[in-house]
């Protein structure tokens, strides 16, 4: 139907907004992402609350149990994520200068780093299971697995997002003038990093 296809086209090709003003569209997307991140803070927030409550209730248990985590591996993962954050921000910077190939390379590297992060995580989980430490073992490990697990799911989602941006870029859709998806997925990726910045000391260092 003529009207139908016309509408779909306008709605799809000019992403997001309706004043058909790219500047408004960009601002709207950014506000949307920040609002989404606000949601995410509270999603993890409930877990941080549980952590605080139980840590204050059972400090001794946390002290004993957190020593069973490998803080070197944790630190390695921290460095991996921080590096990936830098790489993402360089990727966004590249597309702002119109360099699509560079963006793809940087984002590809980020996905690779995310993969490294997940592999290390996998090794850690395997070691814990090997020693008979499961989510049901005690409250500390309940918290450990739930918090890092939820974070891991976010890492996976981030890898998906970044891949999507690479696909868009390969198709020549991103440019100096319009690169909203790259910038938005960058924001999300930094948030994933941000959560880990807190998880690392809370779980590995101070228990």
């Amino acid at each position, binding site marked *: 139907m003529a009207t139908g296809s016309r509408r779909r086209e306008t709605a799809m090709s000019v992403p997001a907004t309706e004043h058909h003003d*790219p*500047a408004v569209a*960009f601002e709207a997307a*950014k*506000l949307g992402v*920040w*609002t989404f*991140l*606000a*949601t995410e*803070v*509270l999603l993890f*927030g*409930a877990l*941080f*609350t549980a952590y*605080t*409550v139980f840590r*204050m*209730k059972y400090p001794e248990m946390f002290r004993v149990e957190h020593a069973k985590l490998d*803080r070197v591996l944790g*630190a390695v993962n*921290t*460095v991996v994520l*921080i*590096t990936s*954050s*830098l790489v*993402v*921000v*360089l990727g966004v*910077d590249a597309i*702002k200068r119109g360099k699509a190939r560079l963006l793809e390379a940087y984002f590809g590297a980020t996905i690779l780093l995310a993969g490294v992060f997940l592999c290390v995580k996998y090794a850690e989980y395997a070691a814990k299971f090997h020693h008979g430490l499961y989510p049901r073992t005690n409250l500390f490990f309940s918290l450990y697995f739930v918090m890092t697990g939820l974070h891991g799911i976010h890492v996976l989602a981030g890898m998906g997002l970044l891949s999507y941006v690479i696909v868009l870029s390969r198709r020549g859709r991103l440019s100096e*003038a319009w690169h909203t998806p790259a910038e938005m997925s*960058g*924001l999300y990726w*930094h*948030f994933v*990093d*941000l959560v880990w*910045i*807190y998880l*690392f*000391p*809370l779980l*590995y*260092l*101070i228990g």
Partner: protein
Amino acid sequence: MARGTSTSRLVYLAVFAALLALTVVTVLVSYVDLGLGNVVVALLIASVKASLVALFFMHLKGESRLMWGFALIPIVFLSLIIFGTLVDTMLR
């Protein structure tokens, strides 16, 4: 299109270096027993790192008041749920 202030790559690298350094510091400090001090130091360092990421990597530095609002509001509510729950669980 106006994009706010564009941060230079040098700044990104500097921030990255700072983040790395802080990571090393926080790991090293964790080997020293400061009692409650460990918690304070670890959270302080984490917050500095988080602020660096938010300000420079996420470009909050040059953002409008609106974005600042949406960045900070969740922290207020996070403190609220932690505080409200602790008032109960710690004082029963």
